[in-house]
């Protein structure tokens, strides 16, 4: 009787351990995960899926005026079913849309990854009458179905503006 009872505790321990592993697989691993890679200059910023969990809207990336930002949006479907979504990317400023970057349909099979790449040219965003010292902030909105990811893009002025020398007039 005592041995049976002892073994019961061991089985219950094993059941608890297996249940924890089960939760980690079902709740922690499975699902849809997206990762954003923003490359500006020589730096690559990686924004992982869990970064949005705390509802922190201050994910940002900066670039110098005249540069381009290269963005890679990776979606990982860790489900037994197929996943489909419409991806819409746009640039906003002051709650107004400045530019549509892309609109694409993404279809992923079970346990597979997909990615979309695009680039953002700072020259296309800055108004033509902007002075060289001005800096600009834009919001890059990535919409995947119901989910929206926002990244603030800082466009900084050129640190050392090119000084145009005017040749002295001939005497």
């Amino acid at each position, binding site marked *: 009787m005592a041995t049976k009872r002892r073994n019961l505790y061991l089985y219950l321990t094993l059941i608890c351990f297996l249940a924890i592993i089960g939760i980690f697989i079902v*709740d922690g691993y499975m699902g849809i995960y997206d990762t954003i890679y923003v490359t500006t200059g020589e730096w690559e910023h990686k924004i992982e*899926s869990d970064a949005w969990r705390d509802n922190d809207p201050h994910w940002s990336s900066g670039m110098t005026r005249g540069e381009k930002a290269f963005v890679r949006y990776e979606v990982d479907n860790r489900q037994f079913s197929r996943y489909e979504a419409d991806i819409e990317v746009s640039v906003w400023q002051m709650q107004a849309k400045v530019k549509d970057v892309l609109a694409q349909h993404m279809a992923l099979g079970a346990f597979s990854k997909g990615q979309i790449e695009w680039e953002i040219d700072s020259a296309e965003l800055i108004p033509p009458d902007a002075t060289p010292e001005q800096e600009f902030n834009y919001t890059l909105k990535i919409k995947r179905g119901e989910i929206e990811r926002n990244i603030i893009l800082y466009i900084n002025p050129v640190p050392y503006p090119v000084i145009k020398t005017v040749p002295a007039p001939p005497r």
Partner: protein
Amino acid sequence: MNIRLEYVLFGFGILFCLAGVGYLAAEYVQNLSEAGKLVSLLLTVAMFAFLSKYFEGIGW
């Protein structure tokens, strides 16, 4: 002091097993939902409680 080689190997095995489970837990705990974290915590407490009762039963 005469430690059998088997026990040393068992010790290494258990250590590697714990390291592996710990690494996976650290990796995926970030993706767990709040409810998942809570249930995992409760199950961990229950697991250690049952394990303690088992060791108590075998006379440790």
